[in-house]
């Protein structure tokens, strides 16, 4: 098993499948009287968050606590980071406190990889800049498998702000490993040239959402990340919604079995219409629940055994 989880590319098909199978067992704990397992008793997990997050941080915290680990939450706001402490010094401080695992979210792409060289424990990438978010890809794969019964052979459309999306990158890598066919869809300004081929051969790119929808099993809508946009990538929010937003009429073009995913947080009315987000095809709430199970599986497999 791995020591760190930094990238969707760290996982081969067997390991990814082991994580998904383990997550399926972890999911049964949520329905039990005592929602707790003793597997990580006495281990310490630090949530090191340099960037705002609701679901990922809470999800990792819930996952670690359900496995009986001790959790220390660290957010850059209100810490010594605002006094100018570097990532390395913060990491060494956490190391000295005996962290067995560090879950890190950072605005700089590659920060978790640097951290992995500085600390002795495991490092889990919970989103770094516009680079990767591997546990999101795992929970998306878990959700697809739970809803559609398989991943190999699925056609997955990843729609929207691919340029700034770590979710898209990790998903392309993991889904290619698991045998799904991914099509990246969005305005040309938001899809880097050759990104598909650079991440995983066989990934396609389309600028026409309506053409892709009828053959898609899964549509994954990405959030338009305005906080990362210094330039204007499209003329107006309304025009973006008109061409690349998923609304009711567009959803009707999907095959009957197809599902609609969104990693959250959503811009309702921008990339996804409320009627779509709240429809039975939408897996958005399931994705959050599955996130806890998948993160429990990852934490157990990284920390549960002997190193």
């Amino acid at each position, binding site marked *: *098993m791995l020591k760190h989880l930094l990238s969707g590319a760290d996982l081969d098909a067997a390991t990814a499948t082991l994580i998904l199978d383990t997550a399926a*067992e972890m999911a049964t704990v949520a329905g039990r*009287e*005592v929602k707790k397992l003793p*597997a990580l008793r006495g281990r310490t997990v630090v949530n090191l968050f340099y960037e705002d997050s609701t679901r990922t941080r809470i999800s990792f915290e819930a996952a670690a606590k359900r496995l009986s680990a001790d959790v220390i939450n660290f957010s850059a706001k209100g810490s010594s980071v605002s006094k100018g402490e570097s990532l390395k010094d913060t990491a060494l401080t956490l190391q000295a406190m005996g962290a067995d695992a560090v879950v890190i979210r950072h605005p700089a792409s590659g920060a978790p990889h640097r951290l992995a060289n500085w600390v002795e424990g495991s490092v889990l990438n919970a989103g770094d800049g516009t680079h990767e978010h591997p546990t999101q890809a795992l929970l998306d794969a878990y959700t697809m498998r739970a809803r559609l019964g398989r991943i190999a052979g699925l056609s997955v459309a990843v729609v929207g702000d691919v340029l700034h999306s770590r979710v898209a990158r990790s998903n392309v890598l993991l889904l290619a490993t698991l045998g799904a066919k991914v099509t990246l869809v969005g305005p040309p300004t938001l899809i880097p040239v050759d990104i598909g081929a650079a991440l995983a051969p066989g990934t396609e790119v389309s600028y026409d959402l309506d053409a892709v929808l009828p053959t898609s099993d899964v549509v994954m809508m990405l959030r338009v990340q305005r906080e990362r946009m210094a330039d204007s990538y499209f003329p107006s929010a309304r025009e973006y919604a008109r061409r690349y937003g998923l609304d009711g009429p567009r959803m009707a073009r999907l095959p009957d079995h197809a599902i609609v995913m969104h990693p959250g947080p959503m811009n309702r009315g921008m990339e996804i219409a409320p009627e779509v987000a709240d429809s039975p095809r939408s897996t958005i709430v399931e994705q959050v629940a599955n996130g806890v199970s998948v993160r429990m599986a990852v934490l157990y497999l990284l920390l*549960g*055994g*002997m190193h």
Partner: protein
Amino acid sequence: MAYPQAAQPQPVSPPSVKVILTSAELARVVDRIAHQILEKTQGAAGTVLLGVPTRGAPLARRLAARINAFEGIAVPVGVLDITLYRDDLRRHAVRAIGPTQVPPEGIDGKRVILVDDVLFSGRTVRAALDALSDLGRPSSVQLAVLVDRGHRELPIRADYVGKNIPTALAESVKVTLAETDGTDEVKLIGGAA
């Protein structure tokens, strides 16, 4: 002048293998435990059989099938994976966890009979008791094992024992079942021939 004779490699004797239970004997032992369960539980009312993977699970199903054949009672059967409750998790590479299947009736207020193939140190049973208490509150818990080989490290005993086999620590007891290994057999391996 003759060269000194090179040392001849001593033939390594293969570990001795002794069959403790043949397929027919194993079937008889399962039948007897099924009868004992019926006797001791007054007809297996309110009883749930939980097998501990790997081989406890098929054994529990067999016991339930035999109880059904003898008395026509359908005893609920489940599987209790104890991996996450082991006390040696950190001494080994990470272990894959298996499924836990609790019968739909649940275990609250039931008489739960844990089923395993070999009772040795008692640590597996200790883990199973912990796992059980996280799943609910049985009225009582009993233990059925195919083989008790001794060497307990915890104060645990079985309520139903298929066969007591006195062993040395260096020996190992190998249970194979048709469902998991293709054949029904119990063997004692190693130790003094």
